[in-house]
């Protein structure tokens, strides 16, 4: 019998970094910026949090840590780190109008290199034998669960067994969906991504909207990196462990047709597909495992095919996605 109660929580913890990443990328793309630097930004978000936590743990030196600071400092580091990445991306693509794809890919390469460099340095500093940094004390604060969750049986396990960042991810996703759909800001943001010339003529500041959406999106995505290290990986940073989650987050954006509220559920599906191989019956050929890991991408391709066959305009990517805007260009 398939262990549903065991499977769902694992799928959910797997899904949270994807949800952060896809929410961030969605609002970025809605403003017309195709930020392929998201994997790098999530990576930077993770390592920045690690640096913050590392500094705080070192300064405490065994003395008991303040719970609030133990959470706030890594978060602040994470947000600032990913904000800087977002600003860099905007500077290059919005202000200097560099090609978005090239810039994004470069940012990903840069972000991963940046993370591995500082990750490696911290590992050297701690002088541990393992190629990883363990911040288990900070992690405890991040993954603290509701005290009564244990007592609620399967209900508690499926719904209440996660750290606060998981719930924050869901709240952010729903808030973003609301903003995009129901508010003036959201309307303006979408207009910028669909048709910047029109938005400009309507008196909407294109540059400001693109900067704000991209930077906010980067910060949200960065939190995904932080969640991954602090909660999912129990505070253990090792280089390259984050894997291809960033790309999966971008695939998720397409899969959900640019809807953060759908992403809440779709990310759990992706998370589930991502770890499905762990639940294979024992004795299956290990080579099949890699095929299972392919599933999220296969599903994305299927959705793309279905959407392009239905040809409904609302389901298309923002029309000027990936195109820099220049007022005097005809």
């Amino acid at each position, binding site marked *: 019998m398939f262990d549903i109660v065991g499977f769902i929580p694992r799928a959910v913890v797997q899904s949270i970094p994807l949800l952060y990443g896809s929410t961030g990328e969605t609002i970025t793309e809605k403003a017309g910026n195709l930020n392929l630097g998201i994997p790098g930004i999530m990576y930077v978000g993770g390592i920045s949090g690690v640096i913050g936590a590392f500094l705080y743990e070192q300064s405490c030196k065994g003395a008991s840590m303040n719970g609030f600071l133990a959470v706030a400092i890594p978060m602040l580091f994470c947000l600032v780190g990913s904000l800087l990445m977002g600003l860099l991306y905007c500077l290059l693509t919005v202000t200097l109008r560099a090609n978005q794809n090239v810039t994004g890919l470069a940012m990903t390469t840069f972000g991963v290199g940046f993370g591995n460099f500082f990750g490696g340095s911290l590992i050297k500093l701690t002088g541990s034998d393992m190629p990883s940094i363990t911040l288990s004390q900070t992690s405890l604060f991040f993954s603290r669960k509701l005290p009564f969750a244990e007592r609620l049986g399967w209900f508690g396990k499926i719904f209440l067994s996660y750290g606060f960042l998981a719930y924050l991810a869901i709240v952010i996703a729903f808030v973003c969906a609301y903003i995009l759909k129901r*508010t003036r800001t959201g309307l303006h943001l979408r207009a910028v991504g669909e048709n910047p010339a029109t938005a400009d003529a309507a008196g909407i500041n294109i540059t400001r909207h693109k900067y704000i959406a991209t930077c906010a999106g980067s910060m949200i995505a960065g939190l995904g990196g932080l969640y991954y290290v602090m909660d999912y990986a129990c505070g253990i940073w090792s280089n390259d462990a984050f894997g291809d989650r960033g790309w999966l987050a971008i695939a998720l954006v397409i899969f959900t047709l640019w809807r953060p509220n759908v992403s809440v559920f779709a990310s759990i599906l992706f998370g589930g597909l991502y770890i499905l191989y762990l639940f294979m019956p024992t004795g299956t050929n290990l080579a099949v495992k890699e095929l299972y890991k392919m599933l999220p991408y296969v599903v994305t391709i299927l959705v793309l095919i279905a959407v392009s066959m239905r040809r409904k305009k609302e389901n298309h990517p923002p029309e000027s996605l990936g195109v820099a805007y220049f007022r005097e260009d005809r």
Partner: protein
Amino acid sequence: MDNKVAAVKMRDITKTFGATVANDKVWLDIYRGEILALLGENGSGKTTLMNMLSGIYFPDKGQIFVDGREVSIRSPKEAFDLGIGMIHQHFKLVDVFSAAENIVLGLKGSGRLDIDEVAKNVKAICEEYGFEVDPYQKIYDMSVSQKQQVEIVKVLYRGADILILDEPTAVLTPQETDKLFAVLRNMRDLGKAIVIITHKMHEVEELSDRVAILRHGSFVGDMLTKTTNAQEMTNMMVGHAVVLDIDRPEPKDPKPRIRVEGLTVRDIEGVVKLDNVSFTANSGEILGVAGISGCGQKELLEAIAGLQPIESGSIKYICDDGREDELIGKDPLSIQSLGVSLSFVPEDRLGMGLVGSMDLTDNMMLRSFRRGRSLIADRKTPKKLAEKVVEELEVNTPGVSTPVRRLSGGNVQKVLVGREISSAPTVLLTAYAVRGLDINSSYMIYDLINKQKEKGVAVVYVGEDLDVLLELCDRILVLCGGKVSGIVDGRGASKRDVGMMMTRLGGAANE
């Protein structure tokens, strides 16, 4: 009427772009309760002048007064604040938004957007002036005329009482134009000031109260419409006397060139676009194609040029020696090598035939790059051709290495038509060749087409302006809903008959 205060006064407005002077010391007054037609050739600075009023450009010199107060308009928003709204030739609408969302775009207000509230206000405006806009309809579902109405409502929603319309009728059918004019008159009677930019004489005469004329960026004069006539306005616009009659030489030795029989075409959704169409196009003759837009004109030309999959029927090309060649099943390239040339001017002018970011020479090369044996494409001949086209058709361009999209609309068309004609075709298919062109350029194009006809080319001319079709074409094929409503002789037909045939199969048969 004498003590009317001008809503807008423009004084000594000058604007230059690099070396070109777009406007030179222009004076213009706009009054409330009046429709002003701003008349001028392509590139005479009409749009530039109005863009300065709507905040898109800023004048280099000069003053603008709104209601007697001097103002400086630095952005479209500031223009809105002064009650000035402009409806551009290319609509500024977001396709995936509904009408209401587009109308409210950019406006300040409460953070939460109550789209039903907006829709209610939009409906109220529609009722007041007589628009037919569904606030919840998505823009991509709308016809051109509906989109235009959304644009106008958008401007009114912002409280504009000075409206500027840039060539509003260029993309409308005659019926839609009538509807628009009714609405505009309505708005005038409610005290709005309206400026329409145009170069269609009969529109000026039909709609406007006053007309102001620009020539090469300078203000030539303004007068009451009822005190002038088309001839005088044209002369002022062009700067010298122009003959307003289109030449129509008798066809010389017409022989069947293209014979279409039972042609049926469906579009991608399976809708019948052409239904059992049969006709013959003769050499040395201009065959006009009339019809309400979207009645299969485009499909007809594309079918002949080999760009449109055909369900049934035949299209025969008849050579000089009487041999017949079936065109169906041939690829566009081999049809072209028979001498069938398509010059199609779509709504956005650059969609078909020319590549906007390439310069004139490269666009000429699109037709000729396959010629010659050498591995390296020949650039000299196309360059000469480009220079020839620029010179003969008086294309207004800094040089042949300017990207085509930087040229103004009329000049783009001249380049396209010029290139097609230069390939010495035996069949010339043109659609909307003069769309958006001023009188002078239009006549130049008619002249070119006539020259082709005299050379023995079979010309198929799809046009919008019935007056022109009746004056230019030897025979007119009238399409109605994809069917042939009739083929009439251009010399005898009346505008009314053709108009009836456009709207009903066989025309007045049921009367």
